[in-house]
């Protein structure tokens, strides 16, 4: 983008892809080769330089007392390398080898029982509390919890307490008509600046660590909520008046009695009933220490993952997965912690899969429960019963907060992670559909789990993962807004549809696969008819649309160059108004930005057309293959050539044959396992290629114009086939697999020749080498076949191709 932008500013026209080559192709290629060679040298030097930098940093770390294994642990924790790669990277660095004491020194949490960790964590909090008991004993319990977790310095703690005490005294002096007024007053007293650009989630960060230093940031939603509740607590209010509530990445206050929600960052109240279901499904009302701890530990973990904020010795873990688990054990309904955890583990390997699926399932269940919980509050039922269990805001002053009461935590069932399978955790489909329709957040979670399961199924060919994904996608699709997304050709939905099709295949439900593909195509491309009046199919129409879009770019370019020095037009002004957040506008002419935006939009539309074309091709092939695997179409000698053309000359099998079976398509795997594959191999070894007319007849009717153009070349090709047959080299049952491949290559090149120049060229280069390689194998294997090799190397189509290039 920058390069393009630079070109534009200098007035140089954009280089338009596909605009045609004006210089001799070899010259361009040679120049490109030279540039690439130069780039290669630079890249190699850069890698060497980076390695030297790493060695330098490691030496410095070593001066701070780091051992080799500590550095290796750090590197592994970065997620970029495994043990062996880390060791290889550090090879040549003369730091000492791993000592047996390394594990004791390394700042990594040992494999400990999670209960011991909870105790240790709570002990750690309790130690802080005891040390600061004098300051904290007259404060609310929640402030005690907050301080024990955040561990502010003495200076910070004194400042926080002074702030709370001052505001408490001030508030007492005032008369308020209701609680809302009182909360608004307190919040204003805390800090009336509600547009702080640098808020911090930690209460302690609003004060400097020591006198004369600068504080880290201002108050954010978390810090405001905790401080307000602490002050209210001191003023004698309890859970019946106000609760802390967490959302996904957010905290607010809830007043269950008056059924209000209080947004501390904008200092205003809203009736709970006015809250949309999306927000309601995320609300987790904090009732006890466990939940408060869970939320805060999750917050600290996220801090470690994203941007290290004031790490405590207890949390000096380069792998905080255990800490996350601990937080989840304390409160598995904590939305923010669960999301941060998911973000971490879903990027990892397959070993995390059960945990990812479990976490998603729990989040979905919790989100649905949350809707019920809030509805219960709104209906006034259970609200009073629950309040008796809640301990967090009880006003009774305690002499010592017993934070090490982990037995209590362990004995409560709802604090433990549920170990049931995700199917037990997920609600039934009826409830799920209702929830998806009501809450975009739940839809987001269900889509996340469906996508993850589908990708997992593709990687592992696991039927149960595919079935789970199918169930979730079907639920998503049965809800109206989701269908709307598809009709609007939302790319995300488009790719989800492709995932769903794969899952049907992996699960072996071919019936559904046919139905879904048949339903998908007309729906998906409803703006384009399946076959237009001239008999052009969808693929042709899309290709045309793509070219038209691309053709607009040079035109746009011309208009831009002609007008770029003129004053801003109305459209430019509208663009600036509608895109106030576009950073580029701060630096560049809005006219340029608008132009680039339009170009990008055209390129995106064109790329989307291309992906749809690929999908269609894929679809056509998979559809046939599905029928073959399912036994609906039998591969016989009679129809072999038809299937052979449709399937084995496709891009799908190019991947299979030419790229060494890397990342096999599930369809190919399914095909190989099916009985049809045996049929295919059997017939492939006995087939002869003696009837070119068959080939012509098997072209779809609307591609007849292609065939006409090809006919002359086909005739030439036929002579070659004749030659091979006359030498008895294609007859009989002895065709070996690589020979079939060679014939396939010849056929492929021949067929592509007619379709489009681009495909022909792309595939020709790929096939040509493969073809030559096979020919040379023939020569080595069987001297008698030299004649064929010579003949084939002078093929009619090859000459025709040269002719074609010359005329172009």
């Amino acid at each position, binding site marked *: 983008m920058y390069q393009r932008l630079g070109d534009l500013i200098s007035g140089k026209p954009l280089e338009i892809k596909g605009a045609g080559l004006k210089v001799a*192709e*070899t010259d361009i*290629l*040679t120049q*490109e*080769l030279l540039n*690439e*060679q130069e*780039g*290669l040298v630079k*890249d*190699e030097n*850069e*890698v060497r330089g*980076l*390695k030297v*930098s*790493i060695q330098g*940093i*490691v030496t*410095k*770390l070593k001066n*701070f007392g780091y051992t080799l294994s500590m*550095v290796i642990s*750090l*590197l592994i*924790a*970065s997620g*970029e*390398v495994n043990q062996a790669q880390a060791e290889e*990277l550090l090879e040549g660095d003369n730091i000492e080898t791993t000592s047996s004491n390394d594990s004791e020194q390394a700042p990594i949490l040992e494999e400990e029982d999670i209960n011991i960790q909870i105790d240790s964590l709570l002990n750690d909090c309790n130690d802080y509390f005891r040390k600061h008991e004098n300051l904290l004993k007259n404060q609310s319990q929640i402030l005690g919890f907050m301080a024990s977790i955040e561990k502010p310095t003495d200076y910070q703690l004194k400042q926080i307490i002074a702030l709370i005490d001052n505001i408490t005294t001030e508030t007492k002096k005032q008369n308020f008509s209701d609680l809302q007024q009182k909360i608004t007053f307190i919040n204003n007293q805390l800090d009336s600046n509600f547009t702080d650009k640098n808020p911090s989630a930690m209460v302690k960060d609003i004060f400097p660590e020591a006198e004369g230093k600068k504080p880290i940031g201002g108050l954010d939603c978390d810090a405001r909520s905790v401080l307000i509740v602490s002050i209210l607590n001191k003023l004698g209010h309890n859970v019946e008046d106000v609760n802390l509530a967490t959302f996904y990445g957010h905290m607010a206050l809830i007043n269950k009695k008056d059924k209000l929600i209080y947004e501390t960052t904008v200092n205003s109240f809203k009736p709970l009933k006015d809250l949309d279901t999306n927000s309601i499904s995320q609300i987790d009302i904090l009732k006890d220490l466990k939940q408060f701890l869970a939320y805060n530990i999750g917050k600290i973990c996220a801090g470690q993952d994203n941007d*290290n904020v004031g*790490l405590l010795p207890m949390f000096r873990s380069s792998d905080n997965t255990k800490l996350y688990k601990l937080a989840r054990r304390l409160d598995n309904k904590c939305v923010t912690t669960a999301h941060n955890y998911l973000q971490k583990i879903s990027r990892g390997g397959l070993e995390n899969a059960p945990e990812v699926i479990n976490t998603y399932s729990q989040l979905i269940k919790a989100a649905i429960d949350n809707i019920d919980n809030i509805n219960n509050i709104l209906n006034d039922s259970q609200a009073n019963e629950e309040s008796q269990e809640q301990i967090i805001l009880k006003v009774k002053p305690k002499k010592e907060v017993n934070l090490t009461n982990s037995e209590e935590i362990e004995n409560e069932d709802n604090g433990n992670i549920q170990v049931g399978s995700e199917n037990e955790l997920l609600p039934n489909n009826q409830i799920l559909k209702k929830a998806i329709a009501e809450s975009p957040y739940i839809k987001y979670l269900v889509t996340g789990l469906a996508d993850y399961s589908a990708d997992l199924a593709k990687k592992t060919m696991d039927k149960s993962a595919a079935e789970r994904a199918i169930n979730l996608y079907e639920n998503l699709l049965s809800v109206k807004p989701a269908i709307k997304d598809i009709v609007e050709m939302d790319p995300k939905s488009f790719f989800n549809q492709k995932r769903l099709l794969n899952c049907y295949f992996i699960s072996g439900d071919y019936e559904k696969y046919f139905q879904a593909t048949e339903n998908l195509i007309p729906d998906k491309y409803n703006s384009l008819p399946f076959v237009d009046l001239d008999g052009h199919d969808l693929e042709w129409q899309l290709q045309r649309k793509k070219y038209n879009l691309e053709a607009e770019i040079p035109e746009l370019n011309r208009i831009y160059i002609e007008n770029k020095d003129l004053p801003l037009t109305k459209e430019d002004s509208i663009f600036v108004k509608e895109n106030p957040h576009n950073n580029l506008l701060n630096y560049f002419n809005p006219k340029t930005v608008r132009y680039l935006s339009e170009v990008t939009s055209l390129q995106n539309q064109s790329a989307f057309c291309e992906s749809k074309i690929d999908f269609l091709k894929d679809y056509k092939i998979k559809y046939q293959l599905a029928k073959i695997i399912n036994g609906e179409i039998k591969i016989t000698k009679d129809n072999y050539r038809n299937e052979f053309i449709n399937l084995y000359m496709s891009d799908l099998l190019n991947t299979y044959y030419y790229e060494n079976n890397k990342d096999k398509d599930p369809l190919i795997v399914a095909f190989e396992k099916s009985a049809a594959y045996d049929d295919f191999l059997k017939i492939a070894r006995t087939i002869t290629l003696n009837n070119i007319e068959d080939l012509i007849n098997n072209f779809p009717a609307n591609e007849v114009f292609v065939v006409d153009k090809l006919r002359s070349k086909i005739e030439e090709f036929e002579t070659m086939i004749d030659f091979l047959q006359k030498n008895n080299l294609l007859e009989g049952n002895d065709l070996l697999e690589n020979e079939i491949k060679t014939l396939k290559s010849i056929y492929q090149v021949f067929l592509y020749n007619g379709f489009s120049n681009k495909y022909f060229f792309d595939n020709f*280069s790929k096939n*040509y*080498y493969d073809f030559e390689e096979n020919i040379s194998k023939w020569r080595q294997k069987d001297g008698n076949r030299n004649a064929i090799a010579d003949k084939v190397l002078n093929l009619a189509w090859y000459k025709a*191709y*040269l002719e074609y*290039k010359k005329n172009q």
Partner: protein
Amino acid sequence: MYFRKIMDIKEKLAKIKDKRKKLQQEQEKLRKIILVLSQELDKLKIQQIRKSIK
């Protein structure tokens, strides 16, 4: 052998591009590692400064 020449160059180009892609991935990885190591080093330096102030 016009066509053959094009093919040769294209083959060479493909190989070099592939190699460069791998090198760029390697660079990306190394940069991330440098970031992780420097963050750790920065933390240690800050700790040291704090200690010296005390």
